């Protein structure tokens, strides 16, 4: 399903709709809140790219690897067209993720995602979390041997 931009919505509402869709694992609806040329930066994964396909892949990978993924939003901060969401992502690994093999470990990571909204669509998203914490939770021992348990 795709949705058209809701021009009367505030930037915070646009981002909240993204977060709500992500929280219910509806990646398609989440990505529908983004501009087709959205700039996507995921610092811990070294991703810096453009387009909803990239955003779709980032979200899909998370939902696929952690089927019980739970997104608990603690704050949504609107500063003009920039909206910052603070949330905790929790889940149990069921498939490889970011090079880490599945050892069925539980993940809980505090994250901050910074969005820019223009004309009712997300035009920029930058995700911040600590990959050291993520690997620690997933029982990865070394950065140069991520796939070796």
């Amino acid at each position, binding site marked *: 399903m795709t949705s058209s931009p809701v021009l009367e919505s505030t930037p915070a509402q646009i981002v909240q709709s993204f977060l709500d869709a992500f929280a219910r694992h509806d990646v398609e609806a989440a990505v529908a809140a983004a501009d087709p040329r959205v700039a996507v930066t995921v610092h811990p994964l070294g991703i810096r790219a453009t387009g909803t396909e990239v955003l779709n892949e980032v979200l899909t990978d998370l939902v696929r690897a952690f089927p019980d993924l739970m997104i608990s939003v603690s704050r949504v901060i609107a500063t003009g067209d920039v909206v910052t969401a603070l949330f905790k992502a929790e889940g149990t690994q069921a498939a490889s993720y970011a090079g880490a093999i599945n050892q069925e470990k539980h993940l809980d990571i505090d994250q901050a995602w910074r969005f820019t909204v223009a004309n009712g669509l997300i035009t920029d998203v*930058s995700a911040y979390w600590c990959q050291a914490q993520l690997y620690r939770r997933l029982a990865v021992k070394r*950065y140069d041997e991520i796939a070796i348990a």
Partner: protein
Amino acid sequence: MTQVSTLPRTAESAAGVVTEFFDRYRAHDVEGMTELCAMNAAFSYPPVELWGKQRVLRGDGKVRTIGKPLWTGLIASFPNLSNTVRTLASNDDGDVVAEVDVEGTQQLAWGLVAPAGQHYREPHLFIFHVGPDLLIDSITAYWNDAGISQQLGHTEVD
């Protein structure tokens, strides 16, 4: 000493406080950074997580008890520590969000990372709240500590 401003809090004045904070950080003026914060200002660095055998030390607490020693230690370990504010967004409620690159060359041990003279530069996202008195009453920051460790030549996930 903490100074109370008589200026009204606006998006611009709140952003000005945070800009000054990073100017002082760049100048390694930890006392000056602290003076920009309220006496009981909250501090949270979620990536700071030191696992011991029986407990985990986290970067949560107050600016004066957790933040100040962390900043002081970081500057000691990275004597050329610097920052570049890439973006800064604020509102009239005193919320300020800043994307900042922090960088430095390691000279002393930092956590479990032994000094190897390596340089790191890592993007950080800082979230501040500036009170009506134009003092920072909350600082939170997110970054990827794995990126820093790897740039410093430390390959173990501690």
